[in-house]
């Protein structure tokens, strides 16, 4: 018996990579279902009011059209609370521009799209709240308990007596998730009360529950199949109206139906990241000790749906500060509901906090890294709990070294290279680490030639980040097998229920369940063998000893007891070097380094991809992304990738990621803290701070486009 071969933590290439690059991985609409019809949505073209009449006659005459469904003939449903964004045709109310008004089902996609163009809708318009600047002042306290005002100490007097202060407004615009794969669904009724949904869902069981409740079905009679996801970033977390409409369409024509959103529809169908206006006030003593911090966010949400991303969270956990105030105010507006978007609240909140810290450092003439380290909290200042682990200082130090921070010039415009101002910026980020209940089945099989294989089954999801791979690694090492002896089956609600790939809980929840399931299988097998082992036996040895060809077990994994006595978060430090053209204002991020402390890193290769992916989105957030509403109509004027810019290759220079070796024995059994969200947090501030260092211009409103720098 030898030591277990190390597989967890190795840079294993994606086990599904070959399928993906050869086009054999099925995404939502790729499933070869026979006899499918195609649904195409049509949408409201007012932001508030009522649909008075819909003339469908011309559409119905189009060759190939099978059905036209509007609120007038839609099936009556009981919308589940898990359903997001409305638009399932239950009445004639319109609450935002682009709310689904109906759909056409036809033999082909083009027939359905053409017919949808021929629909004529008459409206009764009502006054619409579409102009944030106008309705900002109507913002009120959110209903959600965890967005209540959080007050520690006496902010007002501490701020007033602060030796050095920053008091600024930071604005971030509406952003859209716009994953590579637009949302799409195939719905198949297997029987009158049995439904199969092929979809891209980050939370498999969540979509199953929402669809079941909406159609009044037993959850077990709704099967959600979602083996691959072409990105989601939060937009594929909930069940949106089009998923329900696909099933409604399939029922209406009594055939399987495919429904895919166009890129343009993605702007008003599946949520967004809301615009945030953040008022940040920070005070410090002359030697840089923080004394007061207020982080007050004003935002918007839908008329009948409240969602407020937690911008103030970063201010709750990042620094030692005795007096603090965190608050939210939200205005109900005729704009589609906001929802979780990568690094919810933290990515936008850190832009405000980490810009303010940089502004303070400049006023104090202190190095921004040293200022941060000076205010490093020993315990979580928001609740007094000890950290299960926290590597902010290591992130700053190691990152600074990898980046070459010592070459930074403290004064703006001091580093000029030809036509460019060059600047360095730093900013930190954080995201909570959590594990959620997840079950898993482990099946061990001894085949010909004593070749042992394991199948791992759970209703997890893989956003494209490498979940399949890290689960195979976890099982391989725990069972003492090779990665290629493991098959991973996820993305199917018929499998044991699992948490979602949301909020950075995926890796911790799924991998711990697989780990526990594998251990359980080994323990149960060992009990059957009645033998003693010096070293942990492998699954192969145990099957052999127990003389079994097959063994199966199931685990229902839960977060370990006692973790709530600690505060567990991932942390990072981001470093950016920008080159700003002195005459045109065009900015390029020439180099970027993220140093991340996120517990155990299961696979440095996929983790690196995650972190630089977050970094690139952060660069986009800093420089490019912005969705603009024309307040006269309430529609998005930016409605394609020609207007809604994300970084191109040429905008992104060298991207580096370093991980801090962090062993967290408290957060969960495997010590996983999660990296999906934290990668974007702090990035926009690092870029904005670098732009200040380069040009002396402090831009507090994202994105920082050339016009803001000339």
């Amino acid at each position: 018996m030898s030591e277990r071969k190390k597989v967890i933590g190795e840079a294993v290439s994606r086990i599904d990579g070959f399928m993906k690059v050869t086009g054999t991985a099925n995404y939502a609409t790729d499933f070869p279902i026979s006899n499918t019809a195609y649904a195409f949505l049509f949408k409201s073209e007012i932001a508030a009011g009522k649909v008075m009449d819909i003339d469908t006659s011309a559409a119905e005459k189009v060759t190939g059209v099978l059905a036209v469904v509007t609120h007038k003939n839609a099936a009556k449903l009981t919308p589940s609370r898990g359903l997001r964004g409305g638009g399932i045709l239950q009445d004639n109310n319109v609450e935002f521009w682009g709310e689904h008004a109906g759909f056409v089902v036809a033999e082909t996609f083009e027939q359905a799209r053409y017919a949808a163009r021929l629909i004529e809708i008459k409206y009764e318009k009502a006054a619409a709240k579409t102009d944030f600047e106008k309705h900002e002042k109507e913002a009120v306290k959110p209903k959600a308990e965890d967005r209540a005002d959080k007050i520690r100490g006496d902010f007002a007097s501490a701020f007033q007596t602060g030796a050095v202060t920053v008091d600024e407004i930071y604005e971030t615009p509406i952003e859209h998730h716009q994953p590579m794969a637009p949302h799409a669904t195939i719905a198949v009724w297997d029987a009158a009360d049995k439904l199969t949904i092929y979809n891209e869902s980050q939370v498999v069981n969540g979509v199953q529950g929402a669809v079941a409740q909406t159609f009044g079905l037993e959850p077990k009679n709704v099967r959600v199949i979602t083996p691959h996801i072409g990105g989601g970033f939060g937009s594929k977390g909930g069940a949106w109206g089009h998923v329900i409409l696909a099933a409604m369409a399939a029922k209406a024509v009594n055939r399987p139906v495919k429904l895919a959103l166009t890129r343009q529809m993605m702007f008003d169908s599946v949520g967004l990241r809301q615009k945030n206006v953040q008022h940040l006030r920070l005070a410090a003593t002359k030697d840089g000790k923080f004394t007061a911090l207020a982080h007050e966010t004003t935002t918007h949400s839908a008329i009948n749906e409240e969602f407020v991303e937690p911008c103030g969270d970063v201010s709750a956990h990042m620094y030692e500060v005795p007096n603090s105030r965190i608050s939210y105010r939200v205005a109900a507006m005729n704009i589609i509901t906001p929802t979780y978007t990568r690094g919810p609240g933290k990515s936008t909140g850190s832009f405000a906090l980490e810009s303010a810290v940089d502004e303070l450092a400049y006023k104090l003439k202190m190095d921004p890294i040293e200022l941060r380290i000076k205010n490093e909290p020993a315990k979580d200042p928001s609740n007094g709990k000890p950290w299960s682990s926290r590597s902010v200082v290591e992130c700053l130090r190691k990152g600074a070294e990898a980046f070459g921070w010592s070459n930074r010039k403290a004064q703006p415009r001091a580093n000029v290279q030809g036509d460019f101002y060059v600047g360095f910026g730093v900013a930190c980020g954080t995201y909570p680490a959590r594990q959620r209940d997840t079950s898993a089945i482990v099946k061990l099989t001894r085949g010909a030639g004593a070749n042992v294989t394991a199948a791992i089954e759970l209703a997890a999801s893989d956003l494209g980040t490498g979940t399949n791979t890290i689960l195979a690694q976890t099982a391989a090492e725990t069972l003492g097998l090779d990665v290629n002896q493991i098959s991973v089956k996820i993305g199917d609600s018929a499998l044991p229920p699992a948490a979602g790939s949301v909020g950075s809980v995926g890796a911790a929840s799924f991998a711990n369940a697989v780990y526990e399931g594998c251990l359980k299988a080994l323990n149960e097998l060992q009990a059957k063998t009645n033998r003693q082992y010096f070293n942990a036996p492998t699954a192969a040895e145990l099957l052999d000893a127990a003389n079994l060809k097959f063994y199966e077990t199931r685990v229902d994994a839960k977060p370990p007891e006692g973790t709530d006595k600690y505060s567990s978060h991932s942390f990072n430090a981001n470093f950016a070097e920008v080159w700003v053209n002195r005459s045109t204002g065009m900015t390029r991020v020439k180099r970027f380094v993220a140093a991340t402390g996120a517990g155990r890193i299961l696979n440095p290769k996929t983790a690196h991809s995650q972190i630089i992916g977050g970094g690139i989105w952060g660069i986009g957030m800093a420089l490019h992304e912005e969705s603009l509403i024309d307040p006269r109509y309430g529609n998005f004027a930016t409605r394609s990738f020609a207007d809604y810019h994300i970084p191109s290759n040429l905008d992104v220079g060298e991207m580096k990621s370093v991980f801090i070796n962090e062993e967290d024995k408290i957060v969960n059994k495997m010590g996983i803290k999660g990296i999906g969200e934290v990668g974007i947090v702090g990035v926009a501030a690092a870029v904005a701070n670098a732009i200040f260092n380069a040009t002396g211009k402090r831009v507090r409103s994202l994105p920082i486009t050339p016009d803001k720098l000339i």
Partner: protein
Amino acid sequence: MRPFVYTRVDDAAKAVSSAAANTQASFLAGGTNIVDLMKEDVARPTELIDINRLKLAQIRLIGEGANRGNIAIGALAKNTETANHPLVRQNYPLLTQAILAGASGQIRNMATNGGNLNQRTRCTYFYDVAMPCNKREPGTGCGALEGINRMHAIFGWSEKCVAVYPSDMAIALAALDATVKVQGANGATRSIPFAEYHRLPGDNPEKDNTLQPGELITEIELPKNNFAGKSYYLKIRDRASYAFALLSVAAGLEMNGATIKQARIAMGGVAHKPWRALEAEKFLSGKAATEANFAAAAEAEMKSAKPLEHNKFKVELGKRAIVRALSMAMSGGKA
């Protein structure tokens, strides 16, 4: 998209007679613009006349005697091929730069020169059929005039339309004093000086250019010039590649010793057509190529700019861009 008839033609005569027979028809070249517009329901041709088989893809030397050195580029030559053709690279590097500043490699591989000239505005109101737009649907109003108009015009717009023309290639062609050769329904050909090819919106923004219905672009002719070594295409955009210009400048300088004999300056992203900066050109003629003169020329040109609510920055950006493009041209493209 709406149903349409697909017709493939083999020669120019058939192309123009087919177009004459159906006023609702459109030519199909690379398809990178017209097909997009059809998917979005903006363009609704009842027939697409595929002209890809026409023998109009050559890039060749033309001109005799004093005109030796002029070239003609075919309407159906791809943007990529045109940009990389030795005749273009050597004698018209401004055109190469402008083409390569546009779109992406994949799109330039499909896009043709004729299609590029006739690509339509990227005004988002034009693209969204739920919005008012005089260009798409005359009489419905201009959505952008009082809407989101950061990308829109600062020169030559009318109350009817404030759109800008999006092509990069055409900005260089304007600076190069190109001529557009077209063939009409009856086979008649005409030559349109580039400055007269595209038009300002006036009361008829639905018309982008002066082509008559059914006319086919066959070639674009370029006169030889004396500023090959001193030209530059500067494109300022919201990201480093794959974005339309916020503003662009094509600049060429013909020198007579230390003084400027002739300056050619055309701007993109500022008007409904490539905007020849004639004021700036006039100012520079006979002057020394100094930064101060470039700045004064830019000032003279931008004086008449009329920005809209969201594009005031284009006035300052335009000045900077003219100065920078001229400086870069002077230094042979090196910073």
